[in-house]
């Protein structure tokens, strides 16, 4: 049984079909990259999986370790070990970085987690998670907080977007450390070079998974660009050589 099993998931929002009959399985201790252009439905899949308000599936089923996630609110999914690092994480007035990393956990030292994402605990621990942080700093803190949760399944939505070129490798090492810690990862990205670090990859286009395979093949197909602008019209599963 896969850790994550998504079966025939369809999600319509405001009369528009965002995800269409999407089926995907992710095994234990696996990094699965989800490649897709802007608007292909990558983040929507993350929100539906997490149970965000306004992102209920129209049909289909998501199970985690055999548990149907459908009836579970977001925080109960998190308590099962599922979490999401947002593409643009929220900022909070009056909550320090250390507090944020320690959320819901007792006796945790935030320092090693900050160190792991390349931030000095002395310089950052007491700072507030507000607009004084840059986008890149905020994303690193989000990754540190997600790492500290010791999740079973982490959805990382564009974790390297907004990170400077010199630090991308460092972030990739952080993503690998989820797997080393026993977690599986859904790595959402629009950069094929990032997807290459995964164990397996899928390409999303127009809300459909059009190709699942080894990351090199999926990245190669994605790079050809045929899906980037087609919104699924020319990428129907029957038209793609799998």
């Amino acid at each position, binding site marked *: 049984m896969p850790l994550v099993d998504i079966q025939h998931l369809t999600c319509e929002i405001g009369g528009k079909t965002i995800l269409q009959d999407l089926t995907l399985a992710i095994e234990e201790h696996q990094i699965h990259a989800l490649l897709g252009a802007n608007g292909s439905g990558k983040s929507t899949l993350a929100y539906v999986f997490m149970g965000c308000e306004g992102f209920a599936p129209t049909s289909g089923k998501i199970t985690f370790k055999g548990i149907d996630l459908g009836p579970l609110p977001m925080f109960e999914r998190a308590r099962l070990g599922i979490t999401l690092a947002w593409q643009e*994480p929220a900022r909070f007035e*009056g909550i320090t970085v250390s507090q944020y990393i320690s959320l819901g956990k007792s006796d945790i030292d935030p320092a090693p987690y900050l160190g792991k994402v390349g931030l000095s605990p002395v310089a950052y621990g007491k700072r507030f998670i507000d607009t004084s942080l840059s986008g890149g700093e905020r994303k690193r803190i989000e990754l540190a*907080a997600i790492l500290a*949760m010791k999740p079973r399944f982490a959805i990382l939505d564009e974790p390297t977007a907004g990170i400077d070129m010199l630090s991308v490798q460092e972030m990739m090492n952080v993503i690998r450390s989820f797997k080393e810690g026993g977690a599986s990862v859904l790595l959402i990205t629009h950069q094929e070079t990032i997807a290459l670090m995964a164990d397996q990859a899928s390409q999303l286009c127009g809300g459909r998974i059009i190709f699942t395979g080894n990351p090199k093949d999926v990245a190669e197909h994605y790079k050809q660009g045929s899906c980037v602008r087609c919104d699924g019209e020319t990428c129907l599963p029957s038209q793609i050589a799998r």
Partner: protein
Amino acid sequence: MRELKILTDTLESLGGDPEVFQDRHVAHMAASGHRLVSQREISGVTIDAHETGDGITNTIIIEKGKHVALPIHLCLGITEKTGIQRIQTRLVIEEGASASFLAHCLFPFVESGEHRMDATLEIKEGAHVRYDESHYQGTRGGMIVVPKAMVMVGPGAQYFSSFSLVEGRVGQLNIDYVVQVAASAVAELTSKVFGRGKDIIHIKEKMVLAGDYARGLIKTRVALEHDAEGEMTGIMEAHAKGARGHVDCREIIKDRAIGRAIPIVQVTHPEAKVTHEAAIGTVDKKELETLMAHGLDPEQATELIVSGMLQ
């Protein structure tokens, strides 16, 4: 003295340090109702306080060029179940001086009481002042608190003020502050209030950026729950070249509470600029969901967001 002991015990229970009233390096003034219960001057800080029968008047002067290292403590309150306190205060920070004030306004047992403060602050050229005022008004909601202040911030001076009432009940609060900001001076007003029960909160803060390159910020953070009501009026006027002002109001509303925000901005110089932002309503959805993705339930997440906002 019994009243001072009650006030300092209350202060300690709220996380304050009662020892400051024994420290000979710390200037202070303490009043219970219309009685002066303790005061101390230090070098460069004169405190002239009097009981007038129906109130207390005091003038505190920081001498020219004096940098007061430790905060000056003002402890004001009512120690009985009922009472009235009227304070008339004049603070003068002479040229180039700097000082910080911690004002503790404590009404721990009041069931029905009133506190009126009429303050004038004169911050002279190049002076630097920080004035932090925190209130605890018990759990009955029987206090009426009316703080009024007129602040003149002189050329190149800096004035940072905060008002905090986040523990216990508010009762009725009616803040009315006016700040005049001269050339190249900076002024910031921050208010943080948590209204519960049938608390009624009115905060009116006006800042006039009168001098060239004057800068000002009015920041208001209010949380309201149960049947509380709040109305925040932030008025920012800019009348001179290079003046910059911003009004930032955020209110989180729960239950049957009602919140209003009235930002008023006026600019009369083509090279001045004032901006404002106001957000009223429930807790921000993304903030809430971000915390829930960390395993906090909606109540825990809301509590954390509200307490962070009022931090």
